[in-house]
């Protein structure tokens, strides 16, 4: 302790003092001027709740939202990965038209705010896809059937399946552009000699990509992909704007129902932080074997 204190510069003390002043000011303001009545004691109820009628603990709004956020993130990242790989390969294609199309898609997504992209994709694409596949009826059919536990485990309430899927589609499409750029960088980082060697043992272009280029590129792109995944979890909060019931949407609902503005938002922020921070810790650990 002594040693630690010795290492402190006088500026360190200034910083500590400033932080303390800020904290005291906030407490003062909230307690005094704002006369906000904190109702922290109500919050745990919205995380887990004991249902007396069913005699068991059930996840309430915030956890439901959190689980939805996790589901959306996982499925959207799979979709983004698949589309991103296609896009990345297209970006390296020998055909100019393919390259230009991929580039157009990419530039659109890179130059338009995510909020706007999400609205456009939502109204223009995911809606159409859901309608075209008649997904609602199908999902409802499952929701009504008795043995839907597996479906429920993977997708939550099947009645809300279309909303989940549109969130996944929107987020997946949106992120695929960035994944595509990572994949392209990965592919282009593979030495030309590797492709020639593959070709000279008679591999077709597809085999060359499948067995030689992509596996090697994959290794190089893993760290940026991990970062992208964290971005995706963060961006998933945007799907609340299109009424997908994720953590942010549920928090908005909670605030609208109970007016616990401070508590609800602080808890939601903490949830996001915990997920993203543990993910980045995990990836950092994995990166250095």
């Amino acid at each position, binding site marked *: 302790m002594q040693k630690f204190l010795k290492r402190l510069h006088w500026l360190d003390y200034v910083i500590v003092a400033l932080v303390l002043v800020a904290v005291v000011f906030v407490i003062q303001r909230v307690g005094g001027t*704002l*006369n906000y009545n904190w*109702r922290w004691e*109500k919050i745990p*109820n*919205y995380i887990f*709740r004991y*249902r007396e009628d069913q005699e068991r603990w*059930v996840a*309430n*709004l915030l956890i*439901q939202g959190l689980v939805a956020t996790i589901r959306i993130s996982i499925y959207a990242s799979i979709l983004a990965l698949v589309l991103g790989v296609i896009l990345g390969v297209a970006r390296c294609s020998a055909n100019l038209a393919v390259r230009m199309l991929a580039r157009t898609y990419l530039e659109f997504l890179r130059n338009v705010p995510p909020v706007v992209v999400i609205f456009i994709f939502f*109204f223009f694409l995911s*809606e159409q896809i859901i*309608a075209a596949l008649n997904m609602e*009826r199908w999902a*409802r059919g499952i929701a009504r059937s008795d043995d839907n536990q597996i479906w429920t485990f993977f997708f939550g309430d099947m*009645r809300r399946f*279309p*909303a989940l899927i549109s969130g996944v589609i929107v987020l997946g499409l949106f992120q695929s552009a960035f994944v595509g750029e990572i994949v392209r960088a990965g592919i282009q980082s593979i030495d030309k000699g590797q492709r020639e060697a593959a070709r000279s043992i008679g591999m077709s272009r597809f085999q060359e990509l499948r067995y030689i280029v992509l596996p090697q590129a994959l290794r190089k792109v893993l760290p940026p992909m991990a970062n992208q995944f964290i971005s995706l979890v963060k961006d998933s909060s945007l799907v*609340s*704007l*299109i*009424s997908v*019931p994720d953590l942010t*949407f549920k928090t*908005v*609902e*909670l*605030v*609208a*129902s*109970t*007016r*616990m*503005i401070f508590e609800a938002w602080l808890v939601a922020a903490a949830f996001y932080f915990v997920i993203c921070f543990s993910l980045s810790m995990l990836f950092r650990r994995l990166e250095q074997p």
Partner: protein
Amino acid sequence: AQSTQQSLSSGSVIESIKQEGVIKIGLSIFRPWSMRDLNGELVGFELDVGRELAKDMGVEVEFVPTSWDGIIPALVSGKFDVIISGMSITPQRNLTVNFSDPYAYSGMTILANKAMTEGFSLEDYNSADVTFAARRGATPAAVIADMFPEAELLLFDEDGASTQEVLNGNAHATMSSEPTPSEAARRYPETLYVPFNEAFQAGGEAFALRKGDPDAENFFNNWIGTKTRTGWLKERHDYWFRGEDWKDKVAE
């Protein structure tokens, strides 16, 4: 003519509701029309109306919570069959969707910040120095723009946000359907009050449905007519808007 009639009725949303065996109702969280109770379940006036409607139609009911400013586009693009969400009839909206007869008449009142609007007459609100807050796309927004064209108007996604704005002194006043303003005034008596006793534009709230569907409109009108006559609607309305019985089910 025969075939037009057939295709009209088979294309009606009523028909698809019967076929699917479920009616999908779009709504947005809006005390006390609809809100989340302690269990995280939806409760409120709309929920009672929706469930009763489904029961009478002999189908299941599914509520689709949607942000308010996207609720009409969502209806138009077929995300649900009907909006039952305290939506009041306005000409602008009516150009895009059709309305049933009103099923509730809750006039709007002004909720104002006490300190900021001390001694204001109704005319005083119509000034460039005054800031109103309202929910984007909601009726009060249109009414405010209409009544107080000089005032600045800020639009939010959620109703709670505008009340909080007034509470925090960022806006002078907001307007919304009773009982929200009175309730808020009761909760923060030092800061908030309802300055005028009169309710503005009690035009009535109605179901909104897609255009070109006379069958559905007829059905909903008659259902509302029946429920009004039997007093069921008024009883439910009073329960949620006048009563306090439900308050302990929703964190307050």
